[in-house]
């Protein structure tokens, strides 16, 4: 298949739909919502969009180093593997809700998982 995962999942429209569902899930999850609890919702949403663009293997400009510095303050706040796993759960649930086929969900999850050590600063 020549198309990128990003295109196969539905590109930018899919990112928007996913952010809408996903951000609501994390904000309602007491385990992790403090990491997402900035008052500036527009800035938060931009970050969630970047996250999904990344997980869909879409065009983005992130390097492992960016991932580390972007999440360093969260690690300081105590973010660890259990929180990362909770986010992965919501990622999967969101894509299920959007009826994304299993194999594409697995691809997206693998991409997100690939950033684990950078995000957690390991």
């Amino acid at each position: 298949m020549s198309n990128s995962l990003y295109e196969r999942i539905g590109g930018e429209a899919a990112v928007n739909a996913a952010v809408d569902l996903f951000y609501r899930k994390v904000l309602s999850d007491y385990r992790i919502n403090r990491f997402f609890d900035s008052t500036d919702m527009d800035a938060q949403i931009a970050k969630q969009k970047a996250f999904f663009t990344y997980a869909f293997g879409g065009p983005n400009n992130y390097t492992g180093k960016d991932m580390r510095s972007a999440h360093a303050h969260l690690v300081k706040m105590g973010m660890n593997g259990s929180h990362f796993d909770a986010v992965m759960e919501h990622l999967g649930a969101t894509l299920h809700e959007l009826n994304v086929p299993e194999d594409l969900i697995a691809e997206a999850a693998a991409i997100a998982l690939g950033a684990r050590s950078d995000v957690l600063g390991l």
Partner: protein
Amino acid sequence: MFDLKIKNNRVTCRPGETVLDALLRENINIPYGCKAGACQSCVVQSLDAKPPAKAQGGLKDTLKSSGHFLACQCHPEQPMTLKLSKEAASFVDGRVAVNEPLNRNTQLLIIDINDADRYRAGQFVNLQRSDGLTRSYSIANIPHASGTLEFHIRRLPGGRFSTWVHEELKVGDSIPVSEPQGHCFYLPDRKEQGLLLIGTGTGLAPLAGILADALSHGHSGPIRLFHGSREHEDLYRVNEMRELAEHHPNFSYTPCISSGDAPEGFTQGRVHDAALSAQADLVSWRVFLCGHPDMVKSAQKQAYLKGARLADIYCDAFVVSAEQAPSA
């Protein structure tokens, strides 16, 4: 290959190039981020041609209708005249028709304007004093219906512009008015949708405009307006809103007072608490939030958590200057 016109520049968009590519190639300064249609930092406006649908994906309906699109997602299908968002707004002269008090600290300012159909209820414009001092105010009426723009101007302690409007600006004076800005307005689609309008202080202005617009389009879904201020004397148009509610069974109005005891007929408490607790959920509602920035931010998140789609939450986003510190 299509030509793009931007102010005095003409740029040719080559085959395969996006508008963003072409502008960057010509060193035209345009903000961008992801180049993937996600961050929306590259929004520009087409002043003539309708942008391709793909380039408008994910934008709010109101932005779409005004020709805004994502430069990084746009392969032009015809020549376009573009406006970058940072271009300074142009001004035309209006004439003061009414300048009278609405309550103890808020003035009703009505300005006669040519080309009123360019403006929409709920958008904002910049008003300018002759020395260049400029402030943003929201449009509180349906401009094309009367050929006028209506504003509610609260007097702020130490506020140079608002003091000038309250004390010196006279009926008949001419005053420069910018083109309309902002995407906080009503679109007459999905008329059965619920509309929740929450405002503090002169945040009522855009909401009153949006309300009038929705009613004039025969909006059939429920419309709920909550207007709050600290003290009862700082509300205005209370009787007019109550009358409107009597004539329109789908419209309800709740004035809220946040400090002290609320008199009969008023709700005690913060306006967004009152509005959101009255609402089991906001799934498929359209929400408009105007006024104090803290109220807007907090209500935005709560409305979203109650199920409103992000694209259906409209906030009046213009930032008040420090001396215009919000007062609600």
